[in-house]
């Protein structure tokens, strides 16, 4: 499955980073959000996401899975973003009962409705 580019192509669109270790789910989510007019980057784990966020300062929102392999999970990534890049909005998703520590961030249960993901991302980034 083709991966999105390392940099955003469209400079005007809202820039979103999708972080998901399941390849097909990641691909379908990226394509759907691109169809919605977002400019989308994607990462297979939190470490990769941190690298992309450090190189791409125009990311407005991150949509991330919680349970992923790597040095940190989605909650660790959300914490890192909140501390390091406070302007970046975080939307989390999980297939599990969500831990109490996750209540700080907006959470969508899996399977999620893509239209709902789009609506939440627009809502979050429109707040500023």
């Amino acid at each position, binding site marked *: 499955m083709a991966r999105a580019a390392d940099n955003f192509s469209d400079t005007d669109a809202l820039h979103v980073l999708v972080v998901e270790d399941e390849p097909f789910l990641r691909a379908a989510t990226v394509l759907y959000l691109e*169809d919605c007019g977002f400019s989308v980057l994607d990462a297979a784990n939190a470490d990769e996401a941190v690298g992309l966020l450090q190189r791409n300062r125009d990311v407005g929102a991150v949509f991330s899975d919680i349970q992923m392999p790597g040095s940190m999970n989605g909650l660790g990534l959300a914490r890192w973003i909140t501390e390091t890049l406070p302007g970046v909005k975080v939307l989390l998703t999980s*297939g599990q*009962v969500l831990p109490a520590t996750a209540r700080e961030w907006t959470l969508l*249960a*899996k399977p999620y409705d*893509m239209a709902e993901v789009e609506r939440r991302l627009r809502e979050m980034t429109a707040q500023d």
Partner: protein
Amino acid sequence: MDKDFASDIQAIQKIDAIPSILEVVCRTTGMGFAAVARVTEDRWIACAVKDDIAFGLKPGGELKVETTICNEIRQSGQAVVIDHVAEDQAFCRHAAPALYGFQSYISMPIVRSDGSFFGTLCAIDPRPVVLNTPQTTGMFRLFADLIAFHLDTVDRLATSETTLVGANQEAELREQFIAVLGHDLRNPLASIQAGTELLTKRLRDVPARETLRLMQSSVWRMSALIDDVLDFARGRLGEGIDLNRRDTALAPVLSQVVAELQVTAPDRRIDCDFALDRPVWCDPGRLAQLLSNLLANAVTHGHAATPISVRARCNEETFELVVANAGDPIPAATVERLFQPFFRGDSRSSRQGLGLGLYIASEIARAHGGTLNATSSPTATTFTLRLPNRRGI
């Protein structure tokens, strides 16, 4: 030294009273050395020692068992008391006094509650001492019994700690199983859902879009089934359904559930009567789930032409929710089985679901410290939920 004796020494060391016992033994008799010894067929090991005569034994120290009198006590189960070795007919030629240089000796068997021999509480001194009095032998007997009693307690404590650790590990494993199950079942479903939504967005072909719509409704049905199975697993295998209770204005929550159900069953009439003048102490999400399950049951089994009624009342003691529908009366024997998991009343009908809805509803009631009951008459089948409406319950 092998492991078992290390644990015996540890068990004796765990008994706080041992140093005091040895102190009292020495002070009241005037003897210079006292010990608690583990004695087996082939070993004599000091577990606790009071040594004022530089005898030279420390806890863990060992004597050759065959050179001790304790070995004979192990075999006979009887105490040995010697005031003055040189004048004692039975022991004046025994090897032990000469070997260890004592003239007075007392040793009391420590016998566990199961009758097994642990060892001895013993004392020696190079000088003769009057030991053969009811006071002294009585004191040694009492202390030996006390040590045996403490050893039993230490064992029982260790056993219950092990059981507790086992139960904790099991609970952890269960939660892990439930978590992994949730993740591994929902992830592929999320992929299908995202894929069908993507295709719906891109495809213009009407029959293809209809197929995708049906696939999506299958995804949601599957998702609901996974939720039910995980709730079942939590209720049956785990700690029960967990609650996030708060004071809740429940009428809007219940109305929302009715409105959602009305979308899937637009032709059914649902009459609501909510008189809730105060907050209800509950988990609103779980109560919504409970009502949703009861309503789904009423829609499936009730007469289509007759309205379903939902009635909610509360006071400062109790919250009550009643869902009733007209329908064929349910036989009494079946009513009893309604809340069993995987129970599906009429197997001829092509119903969706696993038969977990009423079971989960009753588990939610139970988690709240309440009850869910069913009655059936020719006029109506009625489910009644009663919850205590007080904080701290």
